[in-house]
C-alpha cells in the first residue's frame, strides 16, 4: 500500500498574546514586545494514511482537529515535522472553501479550480456537474456574499467532490447543509470510498465516524491518544469524554466517580432469541450516592446505530460502594446477527455522561423465521 498522507512528527504552537502590538506605533511605544503564552495545538503527531482509507478525526473542542487538517492542506505551516501528500487534495476547512465574497458563484468556481491546479479548460468541463451537484442553477451569477451559509457549503462541497481529488479533507462542514443535501454528500463520500479515494473527515458525530470510517484518530490537547479501527477509537474517545465530563460539567455531581466493572449474564453468554426476553447485569462501584439514568446502545458490526435507549425511562439511584444493576429487556425486537453492546450512566438531566463502557459485549441474536434485515415485522394482509 502506498501512503497518501504521511504526517511525520508534526508540532504546531500558537502564540497567544495577552497584549498584542500590531502596529509600528505600538512597537515604538512598547519596545519590549507583547507578553504571550505558547499554546501547543499539536504535539508530535505522526501517522500515515494509505490509499483508499477513510479516516475520522475525533476530539473535543479545541483539541487540534482543525489545526491538523489545516496543516495537511498546507494552509498552516507546522513548527516542526513535515507532511507528505501524494496527489491532489481538495479540502473543505471550517465553513467553506475560501470564496471571494464579491465574486459570483461562477467566478469562484473557476478561481477555486485554479487554486486546485486546474486550467480554465478543465473547469469548463467540470462546471456543469459542479453546478448540478450544488443545485444552485439559479444563483451561479449571484455574488457569493448573498449566499446563505448552506448555499455556500453546497457550492464548496460541489467543487471539492467534482474535481477528481485523490484526497478529500472535510472539517465538519456538512452539518450546515439541509438534510437532503447531507444525504447527497454522504452518498458521494461512499462513492468516493468505492472508487478507492482517500478521505479524512472531522466530525463530532461519533456514530457517523463509526459507520463511515474504517479508521479513526483521537486527539486530546494536541496529542494523538488513539489511532485504530473506528470502533476502538470511538470507545477511547467516549471514555475520555466521560472521564472528563466529571471534572468539567457543572451539571454533573462534582465528586462522584463511577466505574463500570463488568457486564455479565446469568448464563455467561450474550445470546438471545428474536422477540424473547433478554437480561444482563452491570457491576459497578460508585464513591458517592448518585441519581441518574441508565442508557444502552446497540451497534451492528459495520457501525450502524441500532438503538440508543431513552434514558428518562430508566432512572437509577446508586448508593456508595459496589453494587449490581439488573437490566432486562422484555422482548428483543431484533433479527439474527451480532450486535455490539455499550452501556453507560447519565447524570442530572441526562446530558452528561457519568460512566461509559463502549462495546462491552457482543450480543448474538438467533432467529428461526425467514425475515431478513434488522427488525422482524409481521404484516397482516386482508382484502380491504
Amino acid at each position: 500500500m502506498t501512503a497518501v498522507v504521511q504526517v511525520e512528527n508534526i508540532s504546531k504552537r500558537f502564540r497567544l498574546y495577552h497584549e498584542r502590538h500590531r502596529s509600528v506605533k505600538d512597537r515604538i511605544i512598547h519596545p519590549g514586545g507583547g507578553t504571550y503564552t505558547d499554546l501547543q495545538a499539536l504535539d508530535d503527531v505522526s501517522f500515515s494514511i494509505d490509499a483508499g482509507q477513510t479516516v475520522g478525526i475525533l476530539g473535543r473542542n479545541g483539541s487540534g482537529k482543525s489545526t491538523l487538517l489545516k496543516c495537511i492542506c498546507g494552509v498552516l505551516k507546522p513548527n516542526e515535522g513535515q507532511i507528505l501528500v501524494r496527489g491532489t487534495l481538495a479540502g473543505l476547512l471550517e465553513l467553506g472553501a475560501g470564496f471571494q465574497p464579491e465574486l459570483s458563484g461562477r467566478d469562484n468556481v473557476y478561481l477555486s479550480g485554479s487554486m486546485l491546479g486546474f486550467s480554465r479548460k478543465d473547469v469548463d468541463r467540470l462546471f456543469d456537474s459542479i453546478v448540478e451537484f450544488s443545485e444552485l442553477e439559479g444563483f451561479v451569477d449571484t455574488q457569493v456574499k448573498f449566499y446563505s451559509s448552506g448555499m455556500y457549503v453546497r457550492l464548496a462541497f460541489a467543487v471539492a467532490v467534482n474535481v477528481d481529488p485523490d484526497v478529500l479533507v472535510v472539517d465538519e462542514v456538512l452539518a450546515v447543509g439541509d438534510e437532503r443535501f447531507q444525504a447527497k454528500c454522504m452518498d458521494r463520500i461512499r462513492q468516493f470510498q468505492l472508487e478507492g479515494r482517500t478521505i479524512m473527515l472531522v466530525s463530532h458525530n461519533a456514530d457517523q465516524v463509526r459507520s463511515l470510517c474504517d479508521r479513526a484518530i483521537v486527539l486530546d490537547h494536541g496529542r494523538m491518544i488513539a489511532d485504530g479501527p473506528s470502533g476502538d477509537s470511538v470507545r477511547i474517545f467516549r471514555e475520555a469524554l466521560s472521564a472528563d465530563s466529571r471534572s468539567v460539567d457543572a451539571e454533573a455531581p462534582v465528586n462522584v466517580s463511577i466505574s463500570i466493572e463488568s457486564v455479565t449474564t446469568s448464563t455467561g453468554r450474550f445470546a438471545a432469541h428474536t422477540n424473547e426476553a433478554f437480561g444482563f447485569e452491570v457491576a459497578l462501584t460508585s464513591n458517592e450516592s448518585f441519581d441518574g439514568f441508565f442508557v444502552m446502545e446497540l451497534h451492528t458490526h459495520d457501525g450502524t446505530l441500532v438503538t440508543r435507549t431513552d434514558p428518562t425511562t430508566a432512572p437509577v439511584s446508586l448508593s456508595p460502594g459496589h453494587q449490581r444493576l439488573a437490566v432486562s429487556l422484555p422482548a428483543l425486537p431484533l433479527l439474527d446477527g451480532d450486535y455490539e453492546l455499550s452501556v453507560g450512566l447519565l447524570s442530572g438531566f441526562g446530558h452528561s455522561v457519568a460512566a461509559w463502557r463502549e462495546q462491552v459485549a457482543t450480543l448474538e441474536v438467533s432467529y428461526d423465521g425467514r425475515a431478513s434485515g434488522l427488525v422482524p415485522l409481521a404484516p397482516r394482509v386482508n382484502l380491504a
Partner: protein
Amino acid sequence: MSDSPPPARRPVEDRPVRIVSARPSIGLRFKEIWESRELLSYFVITDIKIKYKASALGILWSMFAPAATLAIYWVVFGKILPNSVPNFALFLFAGLLIWNFFFGVIITSTSVVVDRAGIVKKVAFPREILALSTVGTSFVYFLIQCGVMVIFMLALWHPPAWGMLWLLPLSIFALAVFAGSLGILLSAINVYLRDTRHLIEVALQLWFFLTPIVYSFEHQISKKLHHVAVGNDHILNLTWLYFLNPVTPIVMTFQRVIYAQPTVRATSVPHVPYSVLPTWPTSTYLLLNLGVLAAGLVLFAIAITVFGRLEGNFAEEL
C-alpha cells in the same frame, strides 16, 4: 454489504508528492510560484472584475483619478509655478504614467494579504502570488493609460523617439520586478504591523518628489547636485545618490522616449534653448535600466526569503 463491488484500486503511486514543512527551500518556492501562473492571471482578472462591477462607469472610472492628478499637477507646476517647458502636460504624463503604476503596485500589495484573508485562511497556494497579482492589475491600468497617452500624442502630433522605443518594454519590466518584490516584502510585513500601509503612504509622498516627474532633473536639479557645498570648500557630486532611486531611471527613460526632445526652446520670452532631459546616448539609458533590473532581481530573492519566513503564520495572524 457482500453484494457491493470490491473497492476499486485507484493508482496513486505515480502522483506528484507535495511537502508541507516548516521551511520550504527557496527553489521549491520559485517552482511553486511558477506553477501558479494561471492562478496569478485569475487573480488579476477577478480583481479587475470586482472593481469594474463595483462602479457604473467601470474601467473608465478607473481613469478618473490619474486624469485628475495630471490636471492638478499641470495647473500647479505648469501654470501657477510656470516652468517654461513646452508641452509640459506631455512631459508630466510620461512621468505620471510610471508613477501611477509604481504607486498602484506598492499601495495595493501592502494590504493585499490582509484584504484577501478569506482565502489565505482557507486555501493553500503560494501567497506571493497575491502581491504579484497587484503588479498584473496595475499593469492593465498602465496599458490603458498608455492608450490614452497615444491619443494625446496624436492630438498634439508629437512623435516619440522612435529609435529608442524598444527601451520601454525593458524599462517597465525592470520596474515591475522591482515594485513586485517590494510589494511582496510589504505585504508580509503588513500582516504583522498593520499600520505599515499608512507609513507607506507617507513614504510614497516623499518618494514622488524625489523622482523627476513634476520637475526636470536635467534643468532644475542636475547642477545643484553636482556642486553640493559641504563646509567651506568641499564640493561633492551627489548625483549618484539621486540615482539610487530605482524609479528615476525608468521615469527618465519614458520621458526621453515619449517627450523625445532633450533640448527645447523656453516658452518664456528670451526663447533660449536648454536641456529638459539629459542628452545621454541610448547605451547610458540601457545601462541604467539594466541596473534597475539587477536591483529588482536581488530584491526579489530577498523578498521571497523574508516572505517565506513570515508566511508560515499568516493563517493564524489574520
